[in-house]
């Protein structure tokens, strides 16, 4: 049965971090907001009760909290002349499937991106010129700078309660923080988490090598905190069940903890759960969006008319929704023209792995983002002259794993593979294993893009999204460079066995263990309608009442996790809607 819901001022597709942040801003401004979420309701206390011990088998192994590939997936190929095949098993992209989205189960690394990351084109041209770019690389500015976003980074941290040690406040370097970070107007809301033994070994080694270690900012709260919306968070207990789990301890910032309790009290907010939007509706001339069409949990088709449509789904699904709705010009690989699906990026991971001899690293005490990092080789914090690449990586001692099943395969090389010998090696290895992650940049490239798959369809008969991606030459060069740095520090830490890996040395695969889950772009913001889908306010160049928010707007990927940058750009856009668009509905940027 088809039905039509009463018209809303705003419809928001997806109620994860960006959707709920936007909903809070717009309901507070008095607008009547309806959010449509494909997942079910989740509530901190009842969905993740602290009486129930987290279960690694259902969480990390069976991935209960994720959207299953059998429900909806993507097809993947490395090159445009290959046939893409669907990802039929759980893969590296960890999609949320509940109110709160991936913000419920995320690991919690809470970065402000650097000034360079928002203006890579300007910075590279200024310092190196076009010769620094490998063939086919696409580099462009966002149209919004770090300085523009600073107040919104600040606000989002105060919603999330982010823990960390400030590196630069009002231009003044602070002891113990990241000396390379963009200048902040205030310190982190809560203090950095306690360090692990592995973090301390990393810190000491990095300092000896002349680098500048600091605690990674985290969604795991360092002290009790009342956030900007009046909600209370409790300090983290380092239980180690963050990534792929909801936090029942009120200790990991999530939409469920930091926003939804306030939102649900507002009479001008409605959430429609277990309903998937399949299309953004437009006027016949495609000049205005009129609302969305969704399939509810009964299989009935509903329509939600609205004056403003905001798409806040997972990065890839933002692109797919525009393609399915025939909005803006799709990217055409052959001609290089078109914008939707263009400037798609992933991340370049490099690793240093190590076994110590007689350590007690106690890895069971961890959090999803318990890490100590150096940014000496991230972004443009070092001179790339003669290196043949741009970008780099955040290099970190990451203590985010200590669960028994996940650690079971980690035994030093040469250990027995079964029996008593293996058990002894596992026991010893558990206390002696550590890792250094290089979370590296990936810049857009002519041959990396998203479009609709010609063959495979979802359960509603709509084409799946097709990913065409492989690492480019810039990644291969930066990856090896960063891997060597990881190995250098691992050796300095005094580990007995050390080995490294640079992922771009193999073709991209969605099934690679230890890989990043961060994809960006496809619906990017920018200064030129020929190379971006939306303007600097994340407003569609063609349809002024359509805003696509999230990491799909970012034309490049940093050596950082994206969530806080997503929060900041969402708040930036919310302000533009409240203070500019509502007063004068229409394009906020004219070219």
């Amino acid at each position: 049965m088809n039905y039509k819901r009463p018209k809303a001022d705003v419809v928001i597709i997806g109620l994860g971090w960006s959707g709920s942040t936007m909903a809070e801003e717009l309901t507070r401004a008095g607008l009547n907001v309806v959010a449509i979420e494909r997942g079910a309701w989740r509530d901190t206390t009842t969905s993740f009760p602290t009486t129930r011990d987290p279960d690694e088998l259902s969480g990390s192994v069976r991935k209960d909290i994720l959207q299953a590939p059998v429900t909806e997936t993507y097809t993947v190929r490395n090159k445009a002349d290959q046939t893409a095949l669907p990802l039929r098993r759980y893969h590296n992209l960890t999609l949320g499937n509940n109110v709160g989205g991936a913000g419920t189960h995320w690991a919690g690394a809470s970065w402000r991106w650097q000034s360079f990351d928002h203006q890579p084109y300007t910075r590279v041209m200024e310092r190196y010129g076009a010769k620094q770019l490998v063939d086919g690389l696409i580099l462009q500015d966002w149209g919004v700078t770090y300085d523009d976003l600073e107040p919104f980074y600040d606000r989002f941290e105060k919603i999330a309660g982010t823990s960390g040690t400030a590196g630069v406040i009002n231009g003044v370097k602070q002891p113990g923080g990241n000396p390379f970070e963009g200048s902040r107007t205030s310190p982190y809301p809560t203090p950095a988490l306690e360090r692990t033994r592995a973090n301390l070994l990393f810190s000491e080694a990095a300092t000896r090598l002349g680098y500048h270690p600091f605690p990674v900012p985290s969604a795991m709260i360092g002290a009790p905190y009342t956030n900007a919306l009046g909600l209370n968070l409790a300090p983290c207990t380092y239980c180690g069940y963050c990534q792929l789990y909801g936090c029942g301890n009120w200790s990991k910032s999530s939409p469920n903890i930091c926003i939804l309790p306030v939102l649900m009290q507002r009479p001008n907010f409605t959430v429609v759960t277990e309903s998937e939007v399949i299309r953004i509706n437009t006027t016949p001339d495609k000049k205005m969006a009129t609302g969305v069409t969704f399939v509810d949990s009964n299989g009935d088709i509903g329509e939600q008319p609205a004056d403003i449509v905001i798409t806040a789904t997972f990065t890839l699904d933002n692109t797919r929704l525009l393609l399915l709705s025939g909005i803006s010009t799709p990217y055409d690989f052959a001609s290089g023209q078109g914008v939707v699906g263009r400037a798609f990026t992933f991340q370049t991971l490099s690793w240093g792995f190590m076994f110590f001899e007689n350590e007690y690293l106690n890895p069971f005490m961890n959090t999803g983002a318990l890490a100590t990092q150096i940014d000496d080789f991230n972004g443009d914090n070092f001179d790339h002259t003669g290196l043949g690449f741009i970008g780099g990586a955040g290099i970190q001692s990451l203590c985010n794993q200590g669960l028994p099943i996940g650690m079971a395969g980690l035994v030093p090389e040469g250990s027995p593979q079964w029996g008593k010998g293996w058990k002894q090696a596992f026991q010893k290895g558990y206390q002696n294993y550590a890792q250094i992650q290089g979370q590296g940049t990936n810049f857009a490239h002519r041959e990396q893009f998203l479009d609709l798959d010609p063959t495979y369809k979802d359960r509603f008969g709509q084409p799946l999204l097709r990913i065409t991606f492989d690492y480019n030459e810039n990644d291969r060069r930066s990856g090896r460079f960063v891997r060597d740095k990881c190995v250098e520090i691992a050796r300095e830490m005094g580990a007995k066995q050390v080995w490294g890996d640079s992922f771009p040395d193999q073709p991209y695969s969605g099934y690679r263990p230890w890989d990043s889950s961060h994809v960006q772009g496809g619906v990017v913001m920018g200064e030129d309608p020929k190379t971006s889908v939306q303007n600097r306010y994340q407003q569609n160049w063609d349809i002024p009442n359509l805003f696509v928010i999230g990491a799909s707007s970012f034309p490049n990927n940093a050596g950082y996790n994206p969530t806080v940058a997503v929060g900041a750009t969402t708040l930036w856009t919310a302000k533009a809607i409240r203070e500019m668009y509502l007063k004068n509905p229409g394009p906020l940027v004219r070219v």
Partner: protein
Amino acid sequence: MARYLLRSALRACINGGVALSVAALFAHGAQAQDAPADRVEHGRYLAIASDCVACHTAPGGKPFAGGLDLNTPFGTITASNITSDRATGIGSWTLQQFDAAVRHGKGPNGHLYPAMPYTAYARMTDADLADLWAYIRTVPAVSQKVVENKLPFPYNIRAALIVWNALFFDSTPFKPDSAKSDAVNRGAYLVEALAHCGICHTPKNAFGSDSGATYQGTSLQGWHAPDLTNNDHTGLGKWSAEDIVTYLRSGTNRYTASSGPMTEVIVNSTQHLTDADLQAIAAYFKALPARHVEAPQPLPATNAQVEAGRREFVVQCSACHTSSGQGVANMIPSLQANPAINAKSPDSLLNILLAGTTGPATTANPTGAAMPGFAWKLQDDQIANVLTYIRNSQGNAAPAVSTTDVAKARKALGAQPVVWH
């Protein structure tokens, strides 16, 4: 305007008991349908302060349409429909009938049971009663027939209440005490006449009437309504006036978070009161005379139950309440020297531990952090031990909780059995 009327009414009383004549009131009543908006609004505020909606609304039901079962020691009484529906509500009533019910405990079918707190409302001023009626008449009609009296014999004989009223019902209107501040008098009126705190917090005698132990705390419906008197061990002695205000406004304060029926009172009623009224309530309680409560000697750490309970505390409780038991201000109650924990009766603790408790979600503190129930997880002896430990450590001292106490509570609450053996 409403506040002006209220103040002038109060002043009228203070200045020598000049009460509005009943006739004048009734004239107001006749016009109630057209009562000025500010009178209706003031009536709405009085209805909130008196928390009418708490009993007169069934879970998930329409406001004021009745249907909530109140389980009293004498049997079940179901709250009536007080919407303006003429057939099933009180839409055909006059102000006289409303007054008879609210302040005198007399309904159209005879005497009301004192589950309806007319014993408190009797102290309401004439002006407030008229405003309350003006508001109640504007409540949208809901057709819902409610069978109010499901009491067994002999309690189902309403005439018996004539005797009860003669013995226990004090219908004296509220009289301010000129020796006390305006705030304390206003607080007294709010607490005694409107909010009817004593209905839960004052122990009852065998006939269900208030004993002399005003606000000393008592158990009802599986909860212990704590001691509100000024003593450090079990009462509000350590709370400042601001702690009381913060608690009533947000459901939480630096020491604790509300639980059980008090959460409903805060969410439905006290969070909506003006700051001045909350300050007045705090002033009233802080002005009550200090009461000495002899703290017992805590059980020694070597006591077997305390020792076993400490281990349960570390495993089950410390993640949220923190290792020291300090909790998190405005969110997770501190267990340290907590008067509610020291109450002689462990009823609330048993209820919370077995069934869990949904935290308050108020405008001032929307967090609504809750505690999950442990009935499925902990055996009776484990619960008895951990409660005995908490009640005899961290600055607390209270009688041990026995396995039998837990078993009884588990049965009374209908809590599930433990899922493992």
